[in-house]
Each structure stands twice: as structure tokens, then as C-alpha cells.
């Protein structure tokens, strides 16, 4: 891993309660939800990570503690470095403070994470769904949400399946 990146991770470990993993030269820093806003702010202001490249989540269902990881991928243009911050979120209380105040791009990406995973971002200015319709039930990218498919109809069960099919009938 890059020396400069290692120094940043060490500085973070000194200031905050974070753990750290490395894979293929990428730094993955684990932060508790309560500290995420401070860590992201510190990364932006002290360590010059000016760009929030990606904000997404992973669902580890059926694991419950933690069930989700919220992932923040930050890029430093000045130092040409990348760092990944991961926040473990419990299934019983999927709430993470919003970082909209730090990066404006987090607004839509957090809405997407809410839409797809059902993770609440506490203090979000516009907590609506973004990709799915407003009246959609469930959160599609959760692992316990089934991937839908159309039932094949054969001669013997054509009418039975047809009754269940959601299309306009006369």
C-alpha cells in the first residue's frame, strides 16, 4: 500500500476509533455510524479527499450484526489517492447520520441507498425514493428481496397462472 495512504490511515486511527483492512492495495477503513460525519469531514478538510466518488451499501443477510455495510469511496485529487470507509449497520436499527452537509453528491446517493436497501440516513434533507416509484414496497437490492421472474405458462396450467398475472384484463 502507498506510504502516503498508510500515514492517513494511521492518523485516522489516532483520532478516531477505526479498524483497517487492506486488499490489493486498497485501504478499507471501518468506522462506527456515530463517527462517520466526523471521519468524512476530517478526510475532506485535513487529508484533502475532495471528491466523494461513490456511496453505496452491501447487504450481508442473513447475518444480522451487522447486516449492512455502507460504503463511502473517497478520492483525493491533490494527492491522487483513494480510500474506502465502511460503516457497519445493524439490521435492528439501520440508521446512519447523513453526510449531505459534507458532500452535496451524498444527497442522491443516500436516497439511492435508502431506496435500494432501506437504510435511513438521519438528517437527510430530502428522504424520498429516487429510482423506484414513490409507492413501491420493499427495497430491491436487499438479499431477502426476490429477483422477480415471469411464470412460464403451459397448456395444463395456463388459466391458473393467467389469473395471477398482473396485466390489464377486460
Amino acid at each position, binding site marked *: 500500500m502507498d506510504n502516503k495512504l498508510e500515514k492517513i490511515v494511521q492518523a485516522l486511527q489516532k483520532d478516531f476509533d477505526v479498524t483497517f483492512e487492506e486488499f*490489493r492495495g*486498497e485501504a478499507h477503513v471501518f468506522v462506527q455510524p456515530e463517527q462517520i460525519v466526523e471521519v468524512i469531514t476530517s478526510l475532506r478538510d485535513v487529508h484533502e479527499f475532495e471528491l466523494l466518488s461513490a456511496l*453505496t451499501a452491501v447487504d450481508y443477510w442473513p447475518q444480522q450484526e451487522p447486516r449492512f455495510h455502507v460504503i463511502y*469511496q473517497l478520492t483525493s485529487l491533490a494527492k491522487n489517492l483513494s480510500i474506502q470507509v465502511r460503516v457497519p449497520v445493524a439490521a435492528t436499527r439501520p440508521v446512519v447520520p447523513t453526510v449531505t452537509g459534507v458532500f452535496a*453528491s451524498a444527497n442522491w*446517493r443516500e436516497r439511492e441507498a435508502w431506496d435500494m436497501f432501506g437504510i435511513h440516513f438521519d438528517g437527510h434533507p430530502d428522504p424520498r425514493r429516487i429510482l423506484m416509484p414513490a*409507492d413501491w414496497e420493499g427495497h*430491491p437490492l436487499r438479499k431477502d428481496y426476490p429477483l422477480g421472474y415471469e411464470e412460464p405458462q403451459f397448456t395444463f396450467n395456463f388459466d391458473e397462472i393467467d389469473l395471477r398475472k*398482473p396485466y390489464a384484463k377486460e
Partner: protein
Amino acid sequence: MVQLQEVTVDDLKHLVSGRAIEGETMLLNMGPQHPATHGVLRLLLELDGEIVVNCIPDIGFLHTGIEKNMEAKTYQKAEVMTDRLDYLNTVGNNLAYCMAVEKLVDLDVPPRAQAIRVILTELQRLASHLVWIGTHALDLAAMSMFMYAFREREIILDILELVSGQRMMTTYIRPGGVWRDVPVEFEAAVRDFIKIFPKRIDEYEALLTKNPLLLDRLLGVGVLTKEKALSYGVTGPILRATGVDWDLRKKRPYMGYEQYDFIVPTRTEGDNYARYLVRVQEMRESLKIVEQALNKLPMGPVRSDNRKFVPPPRSEIGTSMEALIHHFKLWTEGFEAPKASVYSAVESPRGELGVFLEGDGGPKPYRIHMRTPSFENVGAIPEMAKGHLVADLIAIIGSIDFVLGDIDR
């Protein structure tokens, strides 16, 4: 009977100014079927006369659950879905995905395959910029420009068809290399294109760059400052038009981009015109890269010979039992990737196209997230549009050059 839930002004109260609630300003819907929104983007505008007070983009009309679908397919089979994201940059999407897979499983790519990848992604960048310049000019009433741009784009699509059999959804780049070697006609076809295209760019510029009708619509309109651009996560030509010299091809060279001599055009104004100039200059630079890569095109294999991840060539299957077993296992079970995650990004025509890929030790991606540049770029429209006329909003949308398939996934 399904109950439809209506979105009311009450739900959007926090997004519009108080004057909209009192009825002083007007809320107007633009799209999703509006021809100038380049796809199915809906904008809810709060207007004071002709002036945009607030702009609320509404996306998701093209959401097809690509990320969810990819989780149910093996690493090889999931690749066809990446073409369908940003349908103007299909080769670039394949490249981003394959680079993420290669990083996750630690797979090498032979030099010839790298050079072919560079040539094709740069040609695709030209094709994408041609669609942009054509539709952008069409929005601003320069109709013939659209015809010229699509005429040249067709030559590029013919080259893509030559190598992959498909004009658009190529899936030509595969983990560990490319599908097969380029045909013998490839070099002549690309050289022909390189020969005619600089003159065509000159023609476009003669038609547009100093055109007073165009300057009226572009100069000083839709200004985005450097700080705002970074905060909104805007990348690509829009970021470079604000004075930030950030191009992943230059800053974090992949696929051997460090061997090629090209400059990253930047402007400092951050308006529509700066974005126009940056993209036109980028077309010239892409052409330089294609020419250098073609001159240097090394000989050798176009696929890694790591048989655990890359299927063996057809010629081996007939004679080698081991090759047959590898072929069978790779196309039935797929290959296994470690339980870990990677993030890898490439420079697409629209900005940083990142792929977050997590494996779980099995043959299917556990989670894949495409960080698509258009999503962030469109998020910055409200910032650019405020205080401008509705007509200027059309120019701003055109100069952002987004693809809805890229946003909604």
C-alpha cells in the same frame, strides 16, 4: 386493483420556495417525454416568469435493476448487462467491469489486448462525443450538425461491428483480454477513419465554434464553480471545464495509457462553452491516442493464458483433455472470486465510471455497484440552472451529456 399513490406538492414542499406554495411562482413539468431532455428525465421546474427558481430532477424511469440482475449471474454472464448501462459507451463499460473482475481475481491482460482495448474505448469515446455534439447542436437549432455527427459515428460503429459482430452491445472486452483477435481489415478501417476525421472536426468547428447563435446560448450560461463541481461529485469534461486537471487516464494510467502522448484539455470558465471546447479538444486527443496505439500495436496473444479464469481457445479443445475440462467448467460453473471487495474506475466520456465489486468466494458477484458519472452530473443540474431562462436550461442539459441508462441502471 392497485392503488396509485399521487405525489402532491405537499411532498415536495421542502424543495421549492415558499412563493410556490402561495402561488406566486409556477410549477411546471418538463419531461419525461420532452425531446430536449435526451431520454426519460423529468424536471420539475419552479418558474418566475421565464426564470428558473428551482429545478427538481426526477429520475428512475429507466431503472431496470441491472445491479440486482448481475448478482444472479456468473462473472462472465453478468458482463452483457454492463453494455446496457450507458449505451453510448458500451466498450468503456465492458472495460470498467472487466478491470474490476481482473483486479478482484488478480488476472493479467496481454499487451496486445490492452492496446486493442485502448483503441476501441477511444473510438467509442469519439462516437459518444459525436452523439453529444450532434444532439447538443440539434437542441440549439443547428440541425445539419446532427446529420454530420451521426454520419461519422456510423463509421465507428462499423468498426465495432467488424471486430465484435455488433454495432453497439459489443461485449467484446472480456475478463483477461478480448473475445478474439481483431480481423485483418481492422487496421485499414481505423486508418481510413483517422485520415478523414481531423478534417471533419475542423468542419464541425467551422460550423459551431464561432457561430454567434451558438455563442449566445453557451457563453456564460450554466456556470459551475470548481468547489461546487467537486462537492456535487461531478467528473469528466464538466469538471475539467471548471479548471480541475483530473483525468484518470493520465492520473492513474490503466491499460498502458502511460505510453501514449496526449494532453488533457482543461478550461477555467466552467460554463457551457467551456464544456463544449473541452469535449471538442478531447476528440482530437482521442484520435491521437488511437493513432499511437495502432502504430505500436504489439503482436501476441489477446487473452490471458490463465486457464482458471479464461476459457481456452477452440483449437486446444479438440486435442487437450485439460482444455476441454476448463472450457466446460468455466461455461457451466464459472470461476470463483475471493471473498473481498475492490473498487476500480476508468475515465468514461462522461467522467469517472467506477465499479465496486464484492465477491463471496463463489462464481457470482455478491454485490456490484456501478458508480456511473451521469448520476452525479445530473445531480448538479439544479445548481447550474438556477437563475437562468428555461431556454438556457435546454442548453445546459445538452452540455452535460448524460445518458439515462447510465443514471437509472
